C-alpha cells in the first residue's frame, strides 16, 4: 500500500453510476492526494469516462460518495463544483467551436471576478501554450485537434483548479502532439495541481503517473505506483499490447 501522507483531496467511496439500467461503475474506491498525478486506465467501456463525469457532477450517482477536500459533493451541481476547484477537460475536448479562442479561454475564467488575476493567468497559459496565443481571434472550430486539446487544457487552468480531471487528452492525436500534450500536463502537475488522468494509452499514462488505477468493466481491479503497474505482467499483457 502507498503511505497515506496527508488528507486525500478526492476520495471516491463505493461510487456507483448507472446508465439506463446498466451499471457502468460498480462501487469503486479511489483516493487522490494533493499534488499527485494519478491515472485511471482500462479498455474502452470500462467506466473511466463515467467515473470522471460523476466526479464533475455531470451524472447522478446510483450509490456511494464523492468526497472532495473532506466534503461530500453528492448534492452539489456541476456548475458549482468548478468554484470548489474541480475542473474537467471532457472527452472530445468540449471546445466551443463557434466561439473564438479568446472567448473559450474567458469561459474558463467565467466564475472568477479578479480581473487582474485572470489576465496574469492568461499570460501564464500563453507562455505554456504559445500556439494558443497566436490564434486568439480565430474561431475555435478552425483549430487542429492538438490545438483544441491545448486550448481545452488552458481553458480549464483559467479557473485555477486544485483538481484537474483529464479525459483522454491523447485521443485522435499524432504521437508528436501527444508527447507535447503530456509535457504540458507534467508542467501543470509541477505547479502543484492534482491531476486525475483517464487514458487508453496506458503505457504513456503510467510512465507519467505516480499512481495508477486499472479499471475493468466498472470495477477497479488493480492499484499501484505507475512503475509497479508498468512492470506488472497482467497489466503488460492486457493493456500494453504484450503477449504474456
Amino acid at each position, binding site marked *: 500500500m502507498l503511505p497515506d501522507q496527508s488528507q486525500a483531496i478526492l476520495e471516491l467511496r463505493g461510487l456507483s453510476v448507472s446508465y439506463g439500467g446498466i451499471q457502468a461503475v460498480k462501487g469503486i474506491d479511489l483516493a487522490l492526494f494533493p499534488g499527485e498525478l494519478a491515472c485511471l486506465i482500462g479498455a474502452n467501456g470500462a467506466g473511466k469516462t463515467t467515473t470522471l463525469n460523476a466526479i*464533475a*457532477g*455531470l451524472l447522478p450517482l446510483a450509490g456511494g460518495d464523492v468526497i472532495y477536500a473532506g466534503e461530500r459533493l453528492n448534492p452539489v*451541481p*456541476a*456548475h*458549482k463544483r*468548478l*468554484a470548489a476547484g474541480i*475542473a*474537467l477537460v*471532457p472527452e472530445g475536448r*468540449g471546445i*466551443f*467551436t*463557434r*466561439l473564438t479562442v479568446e*472567448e473559450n479561454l*474567458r*469561459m*474558463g475564467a*467565467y*466564475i472568477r471576478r479578479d480581473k487582474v488575476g485572470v489576465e496574469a493567468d492568461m499570460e501564464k497559459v500563453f507562455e505554456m501554450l504559445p500556439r494558443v496565443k497566436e490564434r486568439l481571434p480565430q474561431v475555435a472550430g478552425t483549430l487542429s485537434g492538438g490545438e483544441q486539446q491545448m486550448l481545452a487544457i488552458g*481553458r480549464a487552468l483559467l*479557473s485555477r483548479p486544485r483538481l484537474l480531471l483529464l479525459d483522454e487528452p491523447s485521443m485522435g492525436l499524432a504521437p508528436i502532439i501527444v508527447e507535447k500534450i503530456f509535457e504540458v500536463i507534467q508542467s501543470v502537475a509541477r505547479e502543484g495541481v492534482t491531476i486525475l488522468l483517464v487514458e487508453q494509452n496506458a503505457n504513456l499514462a503510467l510512465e507519467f503517473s505516480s499512481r495508477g488505477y486499472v479499471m475493468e468493466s466498472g470495477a477497479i481491479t488493480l492499484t499501484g505506483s505507475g512503475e509497479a503497474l508498468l512492470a506488472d505482467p497482467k497489466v503488460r499483457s492486457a493493456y500494453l499490447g504484450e503477449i504474456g
Partner: protein
Amino acid sequence: METLLQQLINGLTIGSVYALVALGYTMVYGILGLINFAHGDLVMVGALSALQTMMFLMGVAPGMSPIAMLTLALLVAMPVCMMLGFTMERLAYRRLRNAPRLAPLITAIGMSFLLQTIAMILWGRSYHTFPQLISTTPLQPIAGVFITPVQIAILITSALIMVALILLVTRTRVGRAMRATAENHKVASLMGVDTNAVIAMTFVVGAALAAVAGVMFASNYGIAHYGMGFMPGLKAFTAAVLGGIGNLGGAMLGGITLGLVESFGAGYIEDLSFGFLNSSYQDIFAFIILGLVLIFRPTGLLGERVSDRA
C-alpha cells in the same frame, strides 16, 4: 417611384416589428432547439396589458402626457411578459428538456392556446381600440412619401433594441455564457455556468422584446385583440426560418426582408394577379416565402447548419 418608396417605409416598419418577435423565436431555438409557438401570443399579452395600463392611467391621471403614459404602459407590459416567459420555461419546457422533440413542440402549441384562452377570459372576445398615443397622421410628405410619427418611433426603437441585444450577446459575460450554453450545455456547466439560469434568461429577454413588439403593433394598427398574436407570431417564425433559425443576425435580416416582401407584395398584388387578388391577400407572401425557403434553402439566409431537430 413614390409607391416604391412608400412601400419601402411601410415594409421597414412592419419588418422591424417582425424582427423583434423573430429574435425571441431564434434565441430560444438557438439555446434549446425548441420552437416556442406560444411566443407570438406574448405579443398579444404585451399589447393587452399595455392597453389595460393605459386605460387605468387615463382614469386616474387624465392629463398625463402621451409619452409618459406609453412609457409606463411598456414598463408594465414588459415585466408581465417576462414573468410569463419565465413561468412557461420553468413549469413546462424545463421538465421536457430531455423528452423527445415532439413533446415540447406540442406543449408549446398548447401553451399558445392556453394564453389565448386566458386573454379571452380577461379581455373578452371583442376588438379593442388601442390608444394611438403617438400620432398616426402622416407628416408633411417628403418627395411624395408619407411617414407617420409612430412609424418613426417604431423604426428608431427597434433599431436601438437590436443594437443593444447584439452588444449583450457578443460583448458581455452573460452573452458569452448564452452562446456557450447554446453550443453545449454540459461543457458550459463545466465552466461554472448555471445553464438553467441562462436558459430562463433567454426566455425572459425574448419575452421583453415580444412585449415591445406588441405595443408597436397595436400602436401602428390601433387595435388589440386576444388573437392578435397568432399571425405576427407565425410571420416572425417565418422570418426566423428565412434568416436561419438560431442566428440573431438572421432573425433581424429575415424580419426586415419579410416586411419588405409583404409590403411590396401588397402594393403590387393587384397588378401581379391581373386584378384577381387585392392587398388583403398580402399574408400569402409570408407563407410562399416559408415554403420556398424550406424547399430550397432550409438553413435560411445566414444559417450554417442544417437543423436535425423538429
